[in-house]
């Protein structure tokens, strides 16, 4: 026990340090609007610039990391045994903050990689086989991404012969953009490259998952925006269309797989894929509009992107924190074992519900706002009448609407199975209300979600500075009008404040009316179960059952293997037990990644046998062979 004392200090110290440094960077960025700092070194200079775009991200990262740090002050006691978690987490957050203010390619890459390294260390924190696999896959994918980003930076450098971002404006051509976007999409977890995400996010401790899902994936978006809207030479509108479609598919794919999950954190991880897809749709649309010169559409889609980044970051981090608390107090993340937590963790359930509503874009909350803007931009893109875009945006609308509905189903499942009903196993019975600090950590982002959803004018006004930086235009913050692309006349309007006032007014009238005119008697009784005295708590509808009917319709998305095993028994006519197992496989993993891996292993095995022979004669043979080959080449050259 004496051993634990200093570890508590680690937890507190680094959590507070994270809060302080986040606050420090926030103020630093606010007071240094558009300033540039250069740290001179012998070979390369490290420069930092506080552009509006960077400031947005600094504030965003700082805010969420403050919430997460508050949360982990208490939550982290679970991890006191190995305090490296807190140290890594601090550096993780710090590297992300510095990443967004870096203004030259080397600094960017250094902090990009630092972010990856620390997040990787946090992923393998648990140190078991599962964590290793997840961590390796994550780090491999992110390394591939970094390599691609590095390649694109190198090509930019060759074009401009400068390391500084200031010289990269308008320098990036198609190849550079393609390489960079591919690299960043790996980090963002966009569809064909998403495989790492559902493994890596769940195995990390919950506060880290929150940071990874809420903040880190958005760093990829930061990079993409920087490339597409700052560095891009403004060519290749098809890139925008590709991004739109990839994003839409990724959204649908992500949510369909999320629906199939039992593990809460895995479900949330897949939902991150979905939301990244939605952000990608906005980016694609905006970039397309940039190239095709539909100005107001460009601004509008950009607003949707930025709003969705913020709103997804807030709600996803709160949900991950919530899932961490569920894990902490019930010792399981499997929702089939939970249920009825609402009774035990009343306040948490309310916070979680709001988070869930925001992420599934239910009207008054921030998630709906961003999705609304995206819909409006999609409709506007149809108005442009561009032959290709019209069809692609119709496809995108179709996919997005399906995604939205599926998200509703998924999160109903998540909340309903986990928090409602009756406890399915003992794990759920032992739950207690989390500590107040933990609840505060979740409550703050949730409150922000509500605030942004109801009163978005302020934040849109601030986002306008960023939109101006990226696209050179702004969106009117009030009224929240979508602008008709052709003749610049508002064609739709959504007034969240008005709507919410109306909603509240009717709600209070209805409640008041019913209070007066109806019976207020209440009786508490057993749940009706066809008159049977149902004792078996597992007789409730399960999460798997909830999603099975939807999954059956969309079965082509999954590669599921399900089987029922009957226990072989002596009694011929009575089966004592049957076991149903279902396994949902990622189709990309099954049909792309695993075959590639097998191919690589096979090739290297053959190669290894061929080249790295134990036999010295063969080795000498290679030596002389290469000598003779060089000799023959020489003879050809001197001819």
């Amino acid at each position, binding site marked *: 026990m004496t051993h634990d004392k200093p570890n508590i200090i680690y937890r507190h110290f680094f959590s507070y340090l994270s809060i302080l440094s986040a606050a420090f960077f926030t103020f630093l960025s606010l007071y240094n609007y558009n300033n540039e700092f250069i740290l001179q070194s012998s070979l390369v200079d490290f420069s930092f610039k506080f552009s509006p775009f960077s400031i947005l991200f600094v504030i965003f990262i700082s805010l969420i990391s403050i919430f997460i740090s508050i949360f982990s002050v208490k939550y982290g006691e679970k991890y006191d045994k190995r305090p490296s978690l807190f140290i890594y987490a601090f550096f993780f957050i710090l590297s992300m903050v510095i990443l967004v203010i870096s203004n030259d390619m080397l600094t960017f890459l250094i902090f990009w990689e630092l972010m990856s390294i620390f997040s990787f260390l946090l992923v393998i924190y648990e140190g078991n086989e599962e964590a290793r696999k997840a961590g390796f896959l994550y780090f491999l994918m992110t390394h591939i991404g970094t390599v691609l980003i590095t390649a694109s930076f190198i090509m930019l450098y060759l074009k401009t012969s400068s390391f500084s971002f200031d010289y990269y404006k308008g320098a990036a051509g198609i190849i550079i953009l393609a390489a960079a976007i591919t690299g960043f999409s790996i980090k963002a977890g966009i569809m064909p490259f998403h495989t790492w995400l559902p493994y890596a996010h769940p195995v990390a401790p919950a506060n880290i998952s929150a940071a990874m899902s809420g903040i880190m994936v958005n760093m990829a978006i930061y990079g993409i925006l920087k490339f597409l809207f700052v560095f891009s030479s403004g060519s290749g509108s098809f890139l925008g269309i590709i991004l739109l479609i990839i994003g839409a598919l990724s959204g649908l794919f992500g949510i369909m797989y999320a629906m199939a999950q039992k593990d809460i954190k895995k479900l949330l991880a897949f939902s991150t894929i979905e939301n990244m897809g939605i952000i990608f749709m906005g980016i694609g649309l905006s970039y397309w509009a940039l190239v095709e010169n539909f100005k107001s559409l460009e601004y509008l889609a950009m607003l949707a992107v930025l709003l969705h980044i913020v709103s997804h970051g807030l709600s996803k981090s709160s949900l991950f924190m919530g899932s961490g608390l569920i894990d902490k107090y019930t010792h399981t993340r499997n929702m089939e074992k939970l249920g009825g937590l609402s009774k035990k963790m009343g306040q948490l359930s309310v916070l979680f519900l709001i988070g869930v509503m925001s992420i599934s874009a239910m009207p008054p909350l921030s998630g709906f706002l961003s999705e609304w803007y995206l819909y409006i931009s999609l409709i506007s893109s149809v108005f442009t009448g561009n032959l290709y875009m019209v069809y692609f945006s119709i496809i995108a609308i179709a996919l997005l609407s399906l995604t939205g*509905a599926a998200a509703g189903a998924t999160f109903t499942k998540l909340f*309903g199975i986990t928090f409602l009903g009756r406890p399915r196993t003992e794990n759920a019975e032992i739950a207690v209300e989390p500590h107040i600090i933990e609840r505060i950590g979740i409550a703050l982002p949730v409150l922000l979600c509500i605030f942004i959803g109801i009163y978005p004018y302020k934040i849109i006004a601030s986002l306008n500075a960023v939109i101006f930086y990226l696209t050179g235009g702004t969106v009117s913050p009030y009224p929240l009008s979508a602008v008709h692309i052709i003749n610049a006349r508002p*064609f739709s309007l959504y007034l969240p404040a008005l709507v919410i006032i109306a909603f509240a007014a009717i709600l209070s009238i209805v409640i008041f009316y019913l209070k007066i005119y109806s019976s207020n008697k209440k009786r508490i009784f057993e749940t009706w179960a066809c008159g049977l005295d149902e004792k078996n708590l597992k007789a409730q509808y399960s999460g798997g059952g909830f999603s099975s009917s939807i999954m059956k319709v969309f079965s082509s998305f999954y590669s599921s293997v399900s089987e029922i095993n009957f226990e072989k028994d002596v009694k011929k006519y009575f089966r004592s037990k049957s076991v149903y197992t279902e396994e949902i496989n990622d189709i990309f993993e099954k049909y792309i990644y695993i075959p590639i891996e097998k191919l690589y292993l096979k090739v290297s095995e053959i190669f290894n046998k061929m080249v790295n022979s134990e036999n010295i004669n063969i080795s000498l043979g290679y030596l002389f062979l290469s000598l003779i080959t060089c000799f023959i080449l020489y003879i050809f050259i001197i001819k």
Partner: protein
Amino acid sequence: MNYNAEHLALGCIQFFIIVLLAPFFAGFIHKLKQRARGQKGINILQFYINFNKLLKKEVVLSKDATLISSLAPYIVFVSYLLILLMLPAFYRYSLLGVSSDVILIAYSLALATFFMTLYAMDQGSAFGGLGASREWFLTVLSEPSLIFIFISLAIYTKQGRITDIFYFIQNGAENAFLSGAHSSSVSIAIPFLLFISLFIVSISENARIPIDNPETHLELTMFHEANILEASGKHLGIYEYGSYLKLTIFLTIMSLILFPYMAVNIYQVPLALTTYFIKMIILCGLIAGVEIVNPKMRVFRAPNVLSVSFILSLIAMILSIRGF
């Protein structure tokens, strides 16, 4: 859009008339169906009586119920009311018409579904989960169609708000047919396609017969009813009332797509109201007719029907793009 007192007053009246008429339409359909089956049929105002009676009864709450159980009925009910606030029926300026965005309407419906299914899962009853699952199963299939229909309308009319959309259609129709002016942006085919599509969606969304049977409580066939199986007393009352409202919303939208006639000033209101009422009665008859001639289908045949609706709205959307 500037609002004056007249707009507000008539919008208010419009809202209350629709809200009050809602159980009547539902009862009318029921009565029609029963008559067609050769039964005597209920009192046409029976649903008002039911509602009143349910309000008088005590609420039985499950001991496993949480806050959701006491909150969800209101939220569901108010969500529908909110949509009705935005929706024009016979008067062009609805009360919340300024913010009556189509996406908002679609998502408000989803909000209602969300809370209703949460309510269903709250008490830990096996039927609740089943109902919630099936409800979302249908919603996942019909919601894209609904949004598609709305967006097709938006694209067809180049308007984003539902009040403007119908006013545009009405204007276009008036221009085209009354004054004979040629207008390329007016079409009968597109609204008609959308009407059919919306009809299918509304059957699914309102738990009507080929998809669901609103009258039964047989656990294997319940969709909508399974969700509110635990509700009692005033909760059940407002759930029921909510479902009448939802039906009315869909019928109203259908009536406006096909034959928009909305009053723009106070003098046209009586005519518009009458027209509205007649349209609604016809639509009720249509729904009753469909319910009578069709048997309830298997659950997993629902996607087949709904995909038809989806494709129809897709075609409508592509056709309406032609206008640009």
